């Protein structure tokens, strides 16, 4: 009586499993199955799940030759029978699949970022914020207001006050504003005043390049200096 044969592609090759039946029935069924689609199995590595079949060296050798005749390599057999496992080892066959290096968790696109504070107000003359991290202001920073941050400073409004980014020496800190017109701007140990300007030039980013404070028009295509947010 033919035994059901199932062939499944896995990482290591083709896994062959059998339905109910004895080995005497299963073996011919396997050969029939393989012969029905000869080209499909050509060059494949076979892993045969022998379940509880009690096989001896000679049986396994015949299995290996039969598979080899059909262009398949037998490297691994899986078995619950200790006798079969022994026989397989004697024949130089593997009796288990190598541990898969599949990561426990799927690849994550979640980022963590770094500490920042958000001020959703305009800073008036006399207001000051001192923060060990980045500072974002949703509003203006009026002349006479002051921001001191160890990280970067972003002002979504007019920056007309005094700002010190990278206050503990981080030369990668940047200062961005929709209107960059600070009374005094510092990044790490470098300071500069704003040159007199006419019309506003749009959003700008100030950073340290080779020991010089430079302000450039914000260009979304250009990345900020590496670790500006680090």
């Amino acid at each position, binding site marked *: 009586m033919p035994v059901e044969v199932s062939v499944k592609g896995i990482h290591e090759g083709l896994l062959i499993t059998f339905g109910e039946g004895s080995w005497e029935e299963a073996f011919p069924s396997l050969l029939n199955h393989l012969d029905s689609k000869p080209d499909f199995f050509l060059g494949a590595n076979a892993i045969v799940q022998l379940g509880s079949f009690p096989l001896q060296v000679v049986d396994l050798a015949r299995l290996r030759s039969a598979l080899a005749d059909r262009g398949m390599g037998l490297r691994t057999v899986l078995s619950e029978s200790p006798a079969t496992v022994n026989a397989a080892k004697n024949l130089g066959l593997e009796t288990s699949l190598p541990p898969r290096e599949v990561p426990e968790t799927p690849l994550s696109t979640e980022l963590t970022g770094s500490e920042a504070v958000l001020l959703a107000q*305009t800073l*008036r*003359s*006399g*207001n000051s914020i001192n923060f060990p991290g980045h500072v974002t202001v949703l509003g*203006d920073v*009026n*002349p*006479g207001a002051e921001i001191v941050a160890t990280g970067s400073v972003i002002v979504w409004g*007019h920056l*007309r006050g005094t700002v010190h980014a990278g206050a503990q020496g981080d030369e990668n800190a940047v200062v961005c504003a929709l209107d960059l017109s600070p009374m005094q701007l510092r990044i790490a140990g470098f300071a500069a005043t704003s040159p007199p300007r006419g019309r506003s030039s749009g959003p700008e980013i100030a950073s340290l390049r080779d020991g010089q404070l430079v302000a450039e028009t914000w260009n979304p295509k250009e990345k900020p200096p590496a670790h500006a947010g680090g």
Partner: protein
Amino acid sequence: MTAKVLTVTSGKGGVGKTTATANIGVALALLGQKVVCIDSDIGLRNLDVVMGLENRIVYDLVDVVEGRARLRQSMIKDKRLPELYLIPAAQTRDKTAISPSDMVRICDELREETDWVLIDSPAGIERGFRNAIAASDTAIIVTNPEVSAVRDADRIIGLLEAEEKGPGKLIINRIKPELVERGDMLATADILEILAVDLLGLVPEDESVLISTNRGNPAALDSKSKAGQAYRDIAGRLMGEPIPFPSLDGTDNLRKRLARLMHRGGGS
């Protein structure tokens, strides 16, 4: 009748707080309102001089606080307007003589008796300022169209907001339209962009103010004074009338307006 308590403040000295307090008081009284003006600049009193009432001082604010006089005894009735009163400051003491809670007590007593209490604040951000705003319902911030005045006004507004007395309303005083037009003086729009508070009044530079101060006759009494008219407009706005603001950048003149349009079209 519960009075509205307005504190006139600025931060910077010399911008026109006392002038504004006197003139708004007069203008409101001209509209039939009951007004009590309080000079809280202890040690440097001026409101009495500007209102022309310095000869009539018997008791002052410190006398009331220290129990030597009742509130009514210190209130000097204006010589021209029957419902306008002044409580003068003391000249021989300083700002530590009264405390914020003293001001609250005095204004609470006045609330049932009058329509308006106008408190003239001293310059600065210390005790005198704190005294002046303690009882305030609305702050009136006076500034000049000039960078350092605006800087100080911004500071004051920040402090008002921190004390939950803000944001207040703005009077821009001593505007010179020719200078604004030339770009030599801050325009109203520039000032409002930084201070971001509601505008209450625009007062032009006017030599009638100096003359009226020296005579003790506030300019709001003078129908020919441009500054006086501005203060009368401010009183009207406080009463809820929708009085439009003058355009003090000189575009009233049609010829000048056309010239500007042509210049804008041609140049960059």
